[in-house]
């Protein structure tokens, strides 16, 4: 489970912080108010938060992972509503995008001319990829020259793996794509 952090300072038209303003978020598609956390981990969900004396607020919105958290998808957008006793309802901001732990794609190219492609058995070619994605079991695909190919992978550790492919033609280039969490 991951939570997206969103924080701002709320100021009045003279640039002074507004303390005690009420902050709520609505989901853009449904228009429904959402519940969120006030901390990165633990705690219970709330439907609003108030700015402090510096006009600062922060919220943590739960993601939609398989958890029973009833959270939100990576590409959900939200409307931020701010209201205070002295100023009423301020200009809402729609289309707020949050960042729920996006993955990273790591791509590497291995050249036969540089002796980067091993040939441990007849018609088997392999490379070791240092992907540094901090993911023990990432998504992997590979291409030999211009052909995508079935591969067999062995995870060495959370930052590297070996990739082997079968081909009757010796490749000049071995391309590997790895997708991982990158935490």
């Amino acid at each position, binding site marked *: 489970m991951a939570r997206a952090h969103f924080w701002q300072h709320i100021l009045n038209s003279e*640039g002074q912080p507004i303390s005690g303003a009420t902050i709520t978020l609505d989901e853009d598609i449904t228009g429904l108010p959402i519940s969120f956390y006030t901390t990165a981990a633990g705690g219970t969900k709330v439907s609003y938060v108030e700015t402090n004396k510096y006009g600062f607020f922060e919220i943590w919105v739960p993601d939609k992972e398989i958890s029973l958290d009833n959270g939100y998808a*990576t*590409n959900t957008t939200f409307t931020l509503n701010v209201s205070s006793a002295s100023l009423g309802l301020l*200009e809402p901001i729609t289309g707020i995008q949050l960042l*729920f732990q996006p993955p990273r794609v790591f791509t590497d190219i291995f050249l036969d001319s540089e002796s980067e492609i091993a040939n441990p058995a007849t018609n088997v070619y392999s490379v070791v990829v240092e992907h540094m994605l901090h993911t*023990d079991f*990432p998504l*992997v695909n590979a291409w030999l020259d211009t052909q995508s190919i079935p591969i067999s992978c*062995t995870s060495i550790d959370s930052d590297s793996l070996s990739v082997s492919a079968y081909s009757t033609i010796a490749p000049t280039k071995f391309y590997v794509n790895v997708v991982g969490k990158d935490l």
Partner: protein
Amino acid sequence: MARSHFWQHILNSEGVPISGATVTLFDETDDSEVLFYTRESSASLVTYTTTSSSGLFEVWVPDRVEGGYGTNATFTLVVSGSEMDTRMITGVQLLFQPPRFCEFDMFSRLSLLEEHYYSINIQHNLNTEHPYIQAWNTQTRQTMDVSCSSISLSAISVSAYYESEYWPQDSIPVRIVLLGEDT
């Protein structure tokens, strides 16, 4: 199609909002002026926008699918007005609908097929009917073949062959990793 939303409040040195300031964006790869939208669903591209009475501006930058920019493009933001010095912020990064990476272990709720064949229904909630899928044996740390059937936009069925001394096992050391749109 996706547009990345970027918004800020522009204030003067005393913290007072500047209204009517002109906001433009430039693509840092070639310093060309960026065409963007001022609303999530508007159809007209513009080259600039202006700040509101509260100093707020918002732009919606189209992604490559909509003829716009790549995920890792960076931009320069330029804000100018009669009551302010021109300000320039370089290296602005935007968020173009990132995918999501999920992991599921086949350690519970397994269905038994014929001997050594196991199946599990995975609720991935990625809103992606045909996600990118890979399976790993977490004991040998090697990739393995599985068979998948899409059940819905949010769920798949995965069947795996896992041979062990005793059959059936309550759990098997298989991790399924998925990548989807998460819209």
